[in-house]
């Protein structure tokens, strides 16, 4: 799989690939320096800041939304390269691995570092890992819904994404978990056995749901991402939405 991921970015194990990976990591480092580091310093100096947890989510959200968008905006030149549908699907799938999984892995490494360097709580670390799963796999659905629901535009799709049953349950679980973590942090409570089991079970359910959603939707995402007309309609719509928002 990793070899395929490398392949998606050109000649295997070449300097260009390393440069690309560096670009990904550089974005992470940039966001880390911009948001996470000041937040951590503040936290260490000034005790607990629950609102800062949300702030910590921002770079993650940017990163993942960007990845989901990039997945569906592969260069037009690729549609003109001599590849058949199958080869193009493989290319997009490889792109998916490197665009979604690499940031997740890099993010986890950063959070592990954070855990050891800044001694943040294990609970907080757990919440970030959960958020990684939820945000990653959920946002993957939005472009696909964009493509399927041609009449709907922009933020309507986000609502649609959240309203699809599995995704809704998933989001709800994430909210409960984050709420529980915030409650524990606020009252400086340790996890009781029951709470720990509840958190553990909900996390397992959540991960299973993510896999289910991913398995169910990934073939559609790939099929739609490899269709020029759909791909570029989405790009056009997202450009229009960006203009409207701007």
């Amino acid at each position, binding site marked *: 799989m990793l070899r395929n991921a490398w392949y998606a970015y*050109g*000649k295997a194990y070449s300097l*260009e690939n390393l440069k690309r990976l560096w*670009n990904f990591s550089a974005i992470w480092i940039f966001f880390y320096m911009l948001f996470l580091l000041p937040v951590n310093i503040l936290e260490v100096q000034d005790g607990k800041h629950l609102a800062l947890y949300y702030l910590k989510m921002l770079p993650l959200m940017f990163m993942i939304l960007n990845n989901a968008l990039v997945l569906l905006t592969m*260069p*037009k*030149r690729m*549609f*003109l*390269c*001599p*590849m*058949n*549908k199958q*080869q193009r699907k493989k290319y997009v799938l490889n792109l998916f691995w490197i665009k979604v999984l690499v940031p997740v892995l890099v993010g986890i490494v950063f959070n592990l570092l954070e855990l050891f360097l800044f001694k943040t709580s294990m609970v907080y670390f757990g919440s970030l890992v959960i958020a990684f799963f939820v945000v990653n796999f959920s946002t993957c659905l939005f472009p696909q819904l964009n493509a399927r629901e041609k009449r709907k535009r922009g933020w309507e799709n986000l609502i649609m994404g959240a309203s699809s049953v599995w995704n809704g349950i998933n989001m709800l679980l994430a909210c409960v978990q984050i709420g529980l973590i915030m409650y524990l942090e606020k009252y400086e409570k340790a996890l009781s056995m029951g709470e720990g089991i509840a958190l553990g079970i909900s996390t397992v359910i959540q991960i299973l749901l993510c896999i289910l959603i991913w398995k169910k939707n990934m073939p559609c995402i790939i099929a739609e991402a490899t269709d*020029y*007309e759909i791909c570029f309609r989405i790009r056009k719509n997202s450009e229009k939405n960006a203009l409207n928002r701007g």
Partner: protein
Amino acid sequence: MFFRTFLERDIAVEGKAVESMVKLETVTKKVEGFSLKEISMEIPGGYICGLIGPNGAGKTTLLHLIMGLLKPDEGSVSIFGKNFSEEEAAIHDDMGVVLQERLFDSYLSLKENGAYYGRFYSRYEEVYFLELLQKYGLEPGRKYKALSKGEELKFQFAFALSHHPRLLLLDEPTGNFDPEFREEFLTDLKEFISDGERSVILATHLTDDLDRMADYITYLEDGKMLLSQNIEELREGYRMLRGEAYKIKLLPQENIIYMEQGEFGAKALIEHRRRFQYDAALTVSYPTIEELMYCMTKRRKGGKRC
């Protein structure tokens, strides 16, 4: 006949039957707020076909259909006798493109872009690609994003030639070229088709270059193909008259395609017939493509014949 096509034409170069490079049969395609209607055309090997028409006529949509980026709603598109649904990779392997958009990876250098996209093509030659870059004055180590519009089109053209395609599709490239490169570009295009087995489709609304080198002209307007004809036949079939309006009006009305009266006389595009005897006071010339395009567009928009 005013609108003629060269569909089903039996074409031969040096006595050898030439395979159709591009064949469109009654192709209809609806895109957002616009539709191409029943386009039929056939382009043989060894020719340069000019795709002309005003802005928004459907030139780029037609090129996208030929490139396989869009699928026709009705009708069929076959390239080198193959269909996109069955042999997409083989078709693209033989097709070079130069489009108005930025096609390559902005963060890679020209050399890296060539190497990255070139590996998909069976006949890509890196040495030739680098030679072309040098010839066109492009530094291989420069980042793609740093190129100006004209340089970017030069780069696309160099890449397109470097994988030795049989069909070259160009979407309005010449407008961004400096005069010196424009000459070089036209020479390279002629050299490209010189073996009689390769073709070029050049979409443009700048018709000067087509006057000099196109073999066929396809004229589009509002999504309809009004004309698709050999340029020699086209020139032979029409005349541009300049002089007194009443002298032009003496010709049969149905042969006057468009006439415009100015302060110092009139000019008219007419459908030429061998039997016509033009008044000696009239200036008679072969129409340029620009004049043909102008008069036909005016007529379609309700311009008066006389």
